[in-house]
Protein backbone atom coordinates (compact mmCIF):
# COMPACT_ATOMS: atom_id res chain seq x y z
CA UNK A 1 0.00 0.00 0.00
CA UNK A 2 1.49 3.26 -1.10
CA UNK A 3 1.63 5.95 1.55
CA UNK A 4 0.12 9.34 0.85
CA UNK A 5 2.07 11.94 -1.06
CA UNK A 6 3.25 14.50 1.48
CA UNK A 7 3.37 18.25 0.95
CA UNK A 8 5.02 20.77 3.27
CA UNK A 9 3.52 24.27 3.14
CA UNK A 10 5.89 27.01 4.27
CA UNK A 11 3.88 30.24 4.46
CA UNK A 12 3.41 32.91 7.12
CA UNK A 13 -0.26 33.47 6.36
CA UNK A 14 -2.36 31.20 8.62
CA UNK A 15 -5.42 31.59 6.44
CA UNK A 16 -3.65 30.79 3.23
CA UNK A 17 -2.22 27.65 4.80
CA UNK A 18 -5.63 26.61 6.12
CA UNK A 19 -7.29 27.00 2.74
CA UNK A 20 -4.57 25.22 0.80
CA UNK A 21 -4.36 22.49 3.39
CA UNK A 22 -8.08 21.76 3.06
CA UNK A 23 -7.80 21.73 -0.69
CA UNK A 24 -4.82 19.37 -0.70
CA UNK A 25 -6.30 17.06 1.91
CA UNK A 26 -9.48 16.81 -0.11
CA UNK A 27 -7.27 15.59 -2.96
CA UNK A 28 -5.69 12.90 -0.82
CA UNK A 29 -2.40 14.56 0.07
CA UNK A 30 -0.90 14.53 3.55
CA UNK A 31 -0.05 18.08 4.61
CA UNK A 32 2.47 19.58 7.01
CA UNK A 33 2.75 23.27 7.78
CA UNK A 34 5.45 25.73 8.79
CA UNK A 35 4.89 29.43 9.46
CA UNK A 36 8.35 30.66 8.46
CA UNK A 37 11.50 29.62 6.66
CA UNK A 38 13.38 28.47 9.69
CA UNK A 39 10.53 26.32 10.91
CA UNK A 40 10.17 24.92 7.41
CA UNK A 41 13.81 23.87 7.24
CA UNK A 42 13.55 22.35 10.70
CA UNK A 43 10.54 20.26 9.71
CA UNK A 44 12.12 18.71 6.62
CA UNK A 45 13.70 15.79 8.42
CA UNK A 46 10.56 15.06 10.37
CA UNK A 47 8.02 15.10 7.54
CA UNK A 48 10.22 14.16 4.55
CA UNK A 49 7.88 15.82 2.07
CA UNK A 50 7.50 14.82 -1.56
CA UNK A 51 7.01 18.46 -2.46
CA UNK A 52 7.46 21.85 -0.82
CA UNK A 53 5.13 24.77 -1.30
CA UNK A 54 7.17 27.83 -0.42
CA UNK A 55 6.02 31.42 0.09
CA UNK A 56 8.47 34.12 -1.02
CA UNK A 57 7.78 37.06 1.26
CA UNK A 58 7.54 36.05 4.90
CA UNK A 59 9.22 37.89 7.75
CA UNK A 60 11.93 38.97 5.36
CA UNK A 61 11.04 40.15 1.87
CA UNK A 62 12.81 37.34 0.06
CA UNK A 63 12.88 34.68 2.76
CA UNK A 64 11.55 32.03 0.37
CA UNK A 65 14.56 32.46 -1.87
CA UNK A 66 16.83 31.91 1.10
CA UNK A 67 15.04 28.70 1.99
CA UNK A 68 15.15 27.55 -1.62
CA UNK A 69 18.87 28.20 -1.81
CA UNK A 70 19.51 26.44 1.49
CA UNK A 71 17.70 23.31 0.42
CA UNK A 72 19.24 23.18 -3.04
CA UNK A 73 22.82 24.10 -2.15
CA UNK A 74 23.65 23.75 1.52
CA UNK A 75 25.31 20.53 2.53
CA UNK A 76 23.25 19.98 5.64
CA UNK A 77 20.11 19.74 3.48
CA UNK A 78 21.58 17.54 0.77
CA UNK A 79 19.15 14.74 1.62
CA UNK A 80 16.30 17.03 0.59
CA UNK A 81 17.87 18.52 -2.51
CA UNK A 82 15.78 16.39 -4.83
CA UNK A 83 12.47 17.59 -3.41
CA UNK A 84 10.70 19.79 -5.95
CA UNK A 85 9.93 23.29 -4.67
CA UNK A 86 6.96 25.28 -5.85
CA UNK A 87 7.39 28.94 -4.96
CA UNK A 88 4.29 30.95 -4.24
CA UNK A 89 3.96 34.71 -4.06
CA UNK A 90 1.37 37.41 -4.47
CA UNK A 91 3.98 39.48 -6.23
CA UNK A 92 4.02 38.89 -9.93
CA UNK A 93 7.74 39.29 -10.14
CA UNK A 94 10.02 36.54 -11.30
CA UNK A 95 13.41 36.18 -9.59
CA UNK A 96 15.00 37.70 -12.69
CA UNK A 97 13.07 40.89 -12.07
CA UNK A 98 13.56 40.80 -8.32
CA UNK A 99 17.30 40.26 -8.47
CA UNK A 100 18.34 41.74 -11.79
CA UNK A 101 21.99 41.74 -10.85
CA UNK A 102 22.36 38.44 -9.06
CA UNK A 103 25.07 36.54 -10.85
CA UNK A 104 24.09 33.39 -9.02
CA UNK A 105 20.53 33.62 -10.21
CA UNK A 106 20.51 29.97 -11.13
CA UNK A 107 21.21 29.12 -7.52
CA UNK A 108 17.97 30.67 -6.40
CA UNK A 109 15.74 30.09 -9.39
CA UNK A 110 12.83 27.97 -8.16
CA UNK A 111 11.84 24.73 -9.83
CA UNK A 112 8.28 25.95 -10.20
CA UNK A 113 6.59 29.25 -9.61
CA UNK A 114 2.90 30.08 -9.02
CA UNK A 115 1.14 33.24 -7.89
CA UNK A 116 -1.40 33.91 -5.15
CA UNK A 117 -4.32 33.51 -5.09
CA UNK A 118 -3.88 30.09 -6.59
CA UNK A 119 -5.77 29.27 -9.71
CA UNK A 120 -6.80 25.83 -8.47
CA UNK A 121 -6.79 23.75 -11.67
CA UNK A 122 -3.51 25.31 -12.81
CA UNK A 123 -2.02 24.86 -9.35
CA UNK A 124 -2.98 21.19 -9.20
CA UNK A 125 -1.52 20.69 -12.66
CA UNK A 126 1.73 22.31 -11.52
CA UNK A 127 1.85 20.02 -8.49
CA UNK A 128 1.40 17.01 -10.67
CA UNK A 129 4.10 18.14 -13.04
CA UNK A 130 6.48 18.87 -10.15
CA UNK A 131 5.88 15.49 -8.52
CA UNK A 132 6.33 13.76 -11.83
CA UNK A 133 9.60 15.56 -12.54
CA UNK A 134 10.94 14.57 -9.13
CA UNK A 135 9.92 10.98 -9.67
CA UNK A 136 11.59 10.97 -13.06
CA UNK A 137 14.66 12.67 -11.64
CA UNK A 138 15.02 10.18 -8.83
CA UNK A 139 14.63 7.10 -10.96
CA UNK A 140 17.60 8.23 -13.03
CA UNK A 141 20.96 6.85 -12.04
CA UNK A 142 23.41 9.20 -10.37
Amino acid at each position, binding site marked *: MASKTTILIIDDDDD*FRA*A*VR*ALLESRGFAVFEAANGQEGLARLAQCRPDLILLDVMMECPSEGYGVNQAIKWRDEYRDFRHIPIVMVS*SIQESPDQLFPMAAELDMIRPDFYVT*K*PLDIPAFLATLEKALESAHHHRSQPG
Partner: protein
Amino acid sequence: MSTTPAQTIPPPSIVVIDDDPAMRLSCRKVLDKSGYRVETFEDGAGGLEGVERLKPDLIIVDLKMPGISGLEVITRVLETDPAAVIVVITGYATIDTAVEAMKAGAYDFLPKPFSPDELRIIVQRGLERRRLMIEARRQELERELLRRRFVTFVSHQLQTPLAAVHQYLNVLRRLEDDSEGAARRREWYERCLQRVEEMLALIRNWLTLSAIEGQCLAQQRIPVDLNPIIASVFEECRPLADPDGIRLEARPAPEGCLCLGDPVCLRVLLENLVSNAIKYNRPGGRVEVAVRPVNGELELTVSDSGLGIPKQFQPFLFDEFFRVRQPGAAGKPGAGLGLAIVKRIVAELGGRIEVSSEPGQGSTFRVRLPAVSPAGSASGSPPARPHDKQLPSP
Protein backbone atom coordinates in the same frame (compact mmCIF):
# COMPACT_ATOMS: atom_id res chain seq x y z
CA MET B 1 38.91 70.66 5.62
CA SER B 2 41.77 68.60 4.54
CA THR B 3 42.29 66.58 1.43
CA THR B 4 45.08 64.61 3.03
CA PRO B 5 44.17 61.02 2.39
CA ALA B 6 43.41 58.96 5.46
CA GLN B 7 45.36 55.80 6.03
CA THR B 8 42.57 53.38 5.27
CA ILE B 9 41.27 55.17 2.18
CA PRO B 10 43.57 55.02 -0.85
CA PRO B 11 44.64 58.46 -2.08
CA PRO B 12 42.72 59.89 -5.03
CA SER B 13 44.06 58.71 -8.34
CA ILE B 14 44.67 60.99 -11.28
CA VAL B 15 45.34 60.21 -14.92
CA VAL B 16 47.30 62.73 -17.00
CA ILE B 17 47.14 62.44 -20.79
CA ASP B 18 49.53 64.72 -22.65
CA ASP B 19 51.88 64.19 -25.60
CA ASP B 20 54.42 66.64 -24.15
CA PRO B 21 56.92 64.71 -21.96
CA ALA B 22 57.92 67.83 -20.02
CA MET B 23 54.29 68.52 -19.16
CA ARG B 24 53.71 64.91 -18.05
CA LEU B 25 56.78 65.05 -15.86
CA SER B 26 55.92 68.34 -14.19
CA CYS B 27 52.30 67.32 -13.57
CA ARG B 28 53.50 64.07 -12.02
CA LYS B 29 55.99 65.90 -9.79
CA VAL B 30 53.48 68.42 -8.47
CA LEU B 31 50.69 65.90 -7.92
CA ASP B 32 52.95 63.20 -6.46
CA LYS B 33 54.09 65.70 -3.88
CA SER B 34 50.47 66.40 -2.92
CA GLY B 35 50.00 62.71 -2.18
CA TYR B 36 47.93 61.64 -5.18
CA ARG B 37 48.45 58.51 -7.20
CA VAL B 38 49.38 59.67 -10.68
CA GLU B 39 49.59 57.77 -13.97
CA THR B 40 50.58 59.50 -17.19
CA PHE B 41 49.90 58.59 -20.81
CA GLU B 42 51.35 60.06 -23.95
CA ASP B 43 48.38 59.76 -26.28
CA GLY B 44 44.62 59.47 -26.41
CA ALA B 45 44.50 55.74 -27.10
CA GLY B 46 46.79 54.86 -24.19
CA GLY B 47 44.96 57.36 -22.00
CA LEU B 48 41.54 55.87 -22.72
CA GLU B 49 42.82 52.42 -21.93
CA GLY B 50 44.39 53.72 -18.72
CA VAL B 51 41.15 55.39 -17.66
CA GLU B 52 39.24 52.20 -18.34
CA ARG B 53 41.67 50.19 -16.23
CA LEU B 54 42.39 52.61 -13.37
CA LYS B 55 39.00 54.28 -13.03
CA PRO B 56 40.67 57.46 -11.77
CA ASP B 57 39.01 60.13 -9.68
CA LEU B 58 40.23 62.85 -12.00
CA ILE B 59 41.46 63.05 -15.57
CA ILE B 60 43.71 65.79 -16.92
CA VAL B 61 43.90 65.83 -20.67
CA ASP B 62 45.69 67.94 -23.25
CA LEU B 63 43.40 69.05 -26.03
CA LYS B 64 45.94 69.08 -28.84
CA MET B 65 47.46 65.66 -29.35
CA PRO B 66 48.25 63.56 -32.38
CA GLY B 67 45.91 60.63 -32.94
CA ILE B 68 42.82 60.62 -30.73
CA SER B 69 42.22 64.24 -29.77
CA GLY B 70 41.57 65.49 -26.25
CA LEU B 71 38.03 66.34 -27.25
CA GLU B 72 37.39 62.79 -28.32
CA VAL B 73 38.86 61.48 -25.09
CA ILE B 74 36.38 63.63 -23.16
CA THR B 75 33.41 62.35 -25.14
CA ARG B 76 34.42 58.70 -24.87
CA VAL B 77 35.21 58.82 -21.17
CA LEU B 78 31.89 60.46 -20.35
CA GLU B 79 30.04 57.84 -22.34
CA THR B 80 31.17 55.14 -19.94
CA ASP B 81 31.25 57.22 -16.75
CA PRO B 82 28.98 60.26 -16.75
CA ALA B 83 30.34 61.20 -13.32
CA ALA B 84 33.92 61.45 -14.59
CA VAL B 85 35.61 64.77 -13.88
CA ILE B 86 37.91 65.95 -16.61
CA VAL B 87 40.20 68.97 -16.58
CA VAL B 88 41.48 70.21 -19.91
CA ILE B 89 44.95 71.60 -20.58
CA THR B 90 45.02 73.84 -23.52
CA GLY B 91 48.28 74.91 -25.08
CA TYR B 92 46.91 77.58 -27.32
CA ALA B 93 44.98 79.45 -24.73
CA THR B 94 42.21 80.50 -26.98
CA ILE B 95 38.94 80.60 -25.19
CA ASP B 96 37.22 78.86 -28.13
CA THR B 97 38.81 75.44 -27.74
CA ALA B 98 38.30 75.51 -24.01
CA VAL B 99 34.64 76.39 -24.45
CA GLU B 100 34.27 73.55 -26.91
CA ALA B 101 35.78 71.15 -24.39
CA MET B 102 33.47 72.41 -21.64
CA LYS B 103 30.52 71.92 -23.95
CA ALA B 104 31.64 68.35 -24.47
CA GLY B 105 31.46 67.85 -20.70
CA ALA B 106 34.88 68.83 -19.34
CA TYR B 107 34.73 70.21 -15.83
CA ASP B 108 37.30 73.00 -16.11
CA PHE B 109 40.31 74.13 -18.11
CA LEU B 110 43.86 75.14 -17.37
CA PRO B 111 45.66 77.34 -19.92
CA LYS B 112 49.37 76.76 -20.47
CA PRO B 113 51.59 77.85 -18.94
CA PHE B 114 50.33 77.32 -15.40
CA SER B 115 51.95 77.36 -11.97
CA PRO B 116 52.07 74.32 -9.66
CA ASP B 117 49.64 76.12 -7.38
CA GLU B 118 47.15 76.64 -10.16
CA LEU B 119 47.34 72.94 -10.94
CA ARG B 120 46.90 71.97 -7.30
CA ILE B 121 43.88 74.22 -6.84
CA ILE B 122 42.09 73.01 -9.94
CA VAL B 123 42.80 69.38 -9.00
CA GLN B 124 41.41 69.92 -5.51
CA ARG B 125 38.28 71.50 -6.90
CA GLY B 126 37.90 68.72 -9.44
CA LEU B 127 38.25 66.00 -6.82
CA GLU B 128 35.66 67.72 -4.64
CA ARG B 129 33.34 67.82 -7.61
CA ARG B 130 33.92 64.12 -8.22
CA ARG B 131 33.11 63.31 -4.60
CA LEU B 132 29.86 65.25 -4.81
CA MET B 133 28.85 63.60 -8.06
CA ILE B 134 29.48 60.13 -6.70
CA GLU B 135 27.57 60.96 -3.54
CA ALA B 136 24.64 62.30 -5.55
CA ARG B 137 24.57 59.21 -7.70
CA ARG B 138 24.72 56.94 -4.68
CA GLN B 139 21.80 58.77 -3.09
CA GLU B 140 19.83 58.55 -6.28
CA LEU B 141 20.38 54.81 -6.50
CA GLU B 142 19.44 54.38 -2.87
CA ARG B 143 16.25 56.36 -3.31
CA GLU B 144 15.34 54.34 -6.35
CA LEU B 145 15.97 51.09 -4.50
CA LEU B 146 13.88 52.27 -1.55
CA ARG B 147 11.07 53.35 -3.83
CA ARG B 148 11.05 50.00 -5.58
CA ARG B 149 11.13 48.09 -2.34
CA PHE B 150 8.39 50.27 -0.93
CA VAL B 151 6.07 49.70 -3.87
CA THR B 152 6.72 45.96 -3.66
CA PHE B 153 6.03 46.01 0.03
CA VAL B 154 2.81 48.00 -0.14
CA SER B 155 1.42 45.85 -2.91
CA HIS B 156 2.33 42.77 -0.91
CA GLN B 157 0.55 44.15 2.16
CA LEU B 158 -2.55 44.83 0.11
CA GLN B 159 -2.51 41.61 -1.86
CA THR B 160 -1.88 39.18 0.99
CA PRO B 161 -5.27 39.51 2.72
CA LEU B 162 -7.09 39.57 -0.59
CA ALA B 163 -5.27 36.45 -1.71
CA ALA B 164 -6.21 34.67 1.53
CA VAL B 165 -9.88 35.59 1.20
CA HIS B 166 -9.92 34.62 -2.45
CA GLN B 167 -8.27 31.32 -1.61
CA TYR B 168 -10.84 30.54 1.06
CA LEU B 169 -13.77 31.30 -1.22
CA ASN B 170 -12.28 29.42 -4.12
CA VAL B 171 -11.54 26.32 -2.06
CA LEU B 172 -14.95 26.48 -0.39
CA ARG B 173 -16.60 26.32 -3.76
CA ARG B 174 -14.87 23.01 -4.39
CA LEU B 175 -15.32 21.30 -1.06
CA GLU B 176 -17.97 18.72 -0.34
CA ASP B 177 -21.16 20.05 1.15
CA ASP B 178 -21.20 17.60 4.05
CA SER B 179 -21.44 18.54 7.74
CA GLU B 180 -17.70 18.98 7.98
CA GLY B 181 -17.85 21.35 5.04
CA ALA B 182 -20.60 23.37 6.69
CA ALA B 183 -18.58 23.83 9.87
CA ARG B 184 -15.57 24.83 7.86
CA ARG B 185 -17.66 27.25 5.85
CA ARG B 186 -18.82 29.05 8.99
CA GLU B 187 -15.31 29.28 10.35
CA TRP B 188 -13.86 30.52 7.08
CA TYR B 189 -16.54 33.14 6.58
CA GLU B 190 -15.51 34.59 9.91
CA ARG B 191 -11.84 34.56 8.88
CA CYS B 192 -12.69 36.21 5.57
CA LEU B 193 -14.61 38.96 7.36
CA GLN B 194 -11.72 39.57 9.69
CA ARG B 195 -9.18 39.74 6.90
CA VAL B 196 -11.37 42.14 4.95
CA GLU B 197 -11.74 44.34 8.03
CA GLU B 198 -7.97 44.34 8.53
CA MET B 199 -7.54 45.35 4.96
CA LEU B 200 -10.05 48.18 5.30
CA ALA B 201 -8.17 49.41 8.35
CA LEU B 202 -4.93 49.27 6.41
CA ILE B 203 -6.37 51.31 3.57
CA ARG B 204 -7.87 53.80 6.04
CA ASN B 205 -4.50 54.22 7.72
CA TRP B 206 -2.76 54.53 4.43
CA LEU B 207 -5.17 57.27 3.38
CA THR B 208 -4.65 59.07 6.68
CA LEU B 209 -0.93 58.96 6.12
CA SER B 210 -1.26 60.30 2.58
CA ALA B 211 -3.67 62.98 3.76
CA ILE B 212 -1.18 64.22 6.31
CA GLU B 213 1.55 64.11 3.72
CA GLY B 214 -0.56 65.96 1.18
CA GLN B 215 -1.39 68.46 3.90
CA CYS B 216 -5.09 67.81 3.64
CA LEU B 217 -5.09 66.93 7.30
CA ALA B 218 -3.70 68.83 10.25
CA GLN B 219 -4.63 72.12 8.70
CA GLN B 220 -6.19 73.76 11.70
CA ARG B 221 -4.19 75.41 14.44
CA ILE B 222 -6.70 76.11 17.17
CA PRO B 223 -6.61 75.78 20.94
CA VAL B 224 -7.55 72.22 21.80
CA ASP B 225 -8.34 70.75 25.18
CA LEU B 226 -6.90 67.24 25.18
CA ASN B 227 -8.88 66.08 28.23
CA PRO B 228 -12.23 65.44 26.51
CA ILE B 229 -10.43 63.81 23.59
CA ILE B 230 -8.68 61.43 25.97
CA ALA B 231 -11.99 60.57 27.63
CA SER B 232 -13.61 59.91 24.30
CA VAL B 233 -10.70 57.80 23.01
CA PHE B 234 -10.84 55.76 26.24
CA GLU B 235 -14.53 55.21 25.67
CA GLU B 236 -13.87 54.04 22.15
CA CYS B 237 -11.00 51.73 23.17
CA ARG B 238 -12.73 50.14 26.15
CA PRO B 239 -14.02 47.14 24.16
CA LEU B 240 -10.40 46.42 23.26
CA ALA B 241 -9.16 46.73 26.83
CA ASP B 242 -11.94 45.12 28.84
CA PRO B 243 -11.59 41.51 27.70
CA ASP B 244 -8.00 41.47 28.97
CA GLY B 245 -8.81 43.40 32.13
CA ILE B 246 -6.57 46.29 31.12
CA ARG B 247 -7.21 49.49 33.08
CA LEU B 248 -7.25 52.84 31.31
CA GLU B 249 -6.20 55.74 33.51
CA ALA B 250 -6.00 59.43 32.73
CA ARG B 251 -4.08 62.15 34.50
CA PRO B 252 -5.68 65.11 32.81
CA ALA B 253 -4.08 68.46 32.20
CA PRO B 254 -4.73 71.23 34.69
CA GLU B 255 -7.77 73.31 33.83
CA GLY B 256 -7.13 75.58 30.88
CA CYS B 257 -4.02 73.85 29.58
CA LEU B 258 -4.64 73.87 25.90
CA CYS B 259 -2.46 72.77 23.07
CA LEU B 260 -2.36 74.43 19.70
CA GLY B 261 -3.20 72.01 16.94
CA ASP B 262 -5.75 70.23 14.85
CA PRO B 263 -8.40 68.43 16.89
CA VAL B 264 -8.97 65.67 14.32
CA CYS B 265 -5.28 64.92 14.13
CA LEU B 266 -4.81 65.00 17.86
CA ARG B 267 -7.58 62.49 18.18
CA VAL B 268 -5.98 60.19 15.58
CA LEU B 269 -2.69 60.56 17.46
CA LEU B 270 -4.26 59.54 20.75
CA GLU B 271 -6.24 56.71 19.21
CA ASN B 272 -3.10 55.20 17.79
CA LEU B 273 -1.00 55.54 20.92
CA VAL B 274 -3.73 54.28 23.25
CA SER B 275 -4.78 51.35 21.07
CA ASN B 276 -1.13 50.30 20.73
CA ALA B 277 -0.69 50.53 24.49
CA ILE B 278 -3.66 48.18 24.89
CA LYS B 279 -2.69 45.85 22.08
CA TYR B 280 0.84 45.27 23.29
CA ASN B 281 -0.07 45.08 26.97
CA ARG B 282 -0.40 42.08 29.27
CA PRO B 283 -3.64 40.79 30.74
CA GLY B 284 -4.52 42.84 33.81
CA GLY B 285 -2.10 45.58 32.79
CA ARG B 286 -2.67 49.29 32.68
CA VAL B 287 -2.47 52.21 30.30
CA GLU B 288 -1.88 55.70 31.60
CA VAL B 289 -2.34 58.90 29.63
CA ALA B 290 -1.08 62.09 31.25
CA VAL B 291 -0.95 65.69 30.11
CA ARG B 292 1.06 68.38 31.83
CA PRO B 293 2.62 71.71 30.96
CA VAL B 294 6.41 71.65 30.65
CA ASN B 295 8.52 74.68 29.74
CA GLY B 296 5.82 76.42 27.79
CA GLU B 297 4.85 73.27 25.97
CA LEU B 298 2.39 70.51 26.64
CA GLU B 299 3.70 67.05 27.39
CA LEU B 300 1.46 64.15 26.58
CA THR B 301 2.61 60.76 27.81
CA VAL B 302 1.08 57.40 27.04
CA SER B 303 2.54 54.60 29.14
CA ASP B 304 1.74 50.93 29.26
CA SER B 305 2.75 48.00 31.38
CA GLY B 306 3.17 45.72 28.43
CA LEU B 307 5.75 43.80 26.44
CA GLY B 308 8.17 46.66 25.97
CA ILE B 309 10.25 47.18 22.86
CA PRO B 310 13.71 45.61 22.56
CA LYS B 311 16.43 48.26 22.09
CA GLN B 312 17.44 47.08 18.66
CA PHE B 313 13.97 47.73 17.28
CA GLN B 314 13.47 51.17 18.78
CA PRO B 315 15.15 53.17 16.00
CA PHE B 316 12.74 51.74 13.42
CA LEU B 317 9.59 52.08 15.47
CA PHE B 318 8.20 55.02 13.53
CA ASP B 319 9.01 53.64 10.07
CA GLU B 320 6.16 52.76 7.81
CA PHE B 321 5.23 49.08 7.93
CA PHE B 322 7.77 48.33 10.62
CA ARG B 323 6.55 45.80 13.16
CA VAL B 324 8.41 44.58 16.19
CA ARG B 325 9.07 40.87 15.98
CA GLN B 326 8.99 39.32 19.38
CA PRO B 327 7.08 36.60 21.12
CA GLY B 328 3.77 37.99 22.29
CA ALA B 329 3.55 40.52 19.47
CA ALA B 330 3.14 37.89 16.79
CA GLY B 331 -0.37 37.46 15.54
CA LYS B 332 -1.53 40.90 16.68
CA PRO B 333 -3.41 42.50 13.82
CA GLY B 334 -1.87 45.57 12.27
CA ALA B 335 0.22 46.65 9.36
CA GLY B 336 2.76 48.84 11.10
CA LEU B 337 1.34 52.18 10.06
CA GLY B 338 0.05 53.48 13.41
CA LEU B 339 3.28 54.95 14.69
CA ALA B 340 4.23 56.26 11.25
CA ILE B 341 0.98 58.21 11.37
CA VAL B 342 1.72 59.39 14.90
CA LYS B 343 5.13 60.63 13.87
CA ARG B 344 3.82 62.53 10.88
CA ILE B 345 1.10 64.17 12.94
CA VAL B 346 3.54 65.24 15.62
CA ALA B 347 5.89 66.67 13.00
CA GLU B 348 3.04 68.44 11.24
CA LEU B 349 1.93 70.05 14.49
CA GLY B 350 5.43 71.22 15.22
CA GLY B 351 5.98 68.87 18.12
CA ARG B 352 8.32 65.98 18.80
CA ILE B 353 8.03 62.46 20.11
CA GLU B 354 10.29 60.07 21.91
CA VAL B 355 9.95 56.63 23.32
CA SER B 356 11.48 54.95 26.31
CA SER B 357 10.95 51.31 26.84
CA GLU B 358 12.10 48.45 28.95
CA PRO B 359 11.41 44.97 27.63
CA GLY B 360 9.04 43.17 29.96
CA GLN B 361 8.18 46.39 31.80
CA GLY B 362 6.38 48.50 29.28
CA SER B 363 6.82 51.53 27.06
CA THR B 364 6.25 55.25 27.40
CA PHE B 365 5.62 57.51 24.44
CA ARG B 366 6.30 61.14 25.27
CA VAL B 367 4.90 63.78 22.93
CA ARG B 368 5.69 67.48 23.21
CA LEU B 369 3.14 69.76 21.62
CA PRO B 370 2.94 73.52 21.30
CA ALA B 371 0.84 75.00 24.09
CA VAL B 372 -1.54 77.88 23.61
CA SER B 373 -0.30 80.23 26.27
CA PRO B 374 3.27 80.35 27.38
CA ALA B 375 2.80 78.74 30.77
CA GLY B 376 4.38 81.22 33.12
CA SER B 377 2.86 79.35 35.98
CA ALA B 378 1.49 75.87 35.92
CA SER B 379 -1.81 76.77 37.56
CA GLY B 380 -2.34 80.41 36.72
CA SER B 381 -3.22 80.02 33.08
CA PRO B 382 -5.77 82.47 31.75
CA PRO B 383 -9.38 81.44 31.96
CA ALA B 384 -10.16 78.61 29.66
CA ARG B 385 -11.04 79.66 26.18
CA PRO B 386 -14.24 78.31 24.87
CA HIS B 387 -13.37 74.99 23.36
CA ASP B 388 -16.72 73.39 23.19
CA LYS B 389 -16.41 72.91 19.46
CA GLN B 390 -17.59 69.65 18.12
CA LEU B 391 -14.84 67.60 16.57
CA PRO B 392 -15.39 67.68 12.86
CA SER B 393 -16.04 64.20 11.69
CA PRO B 394 -13.20 62.78 9.66
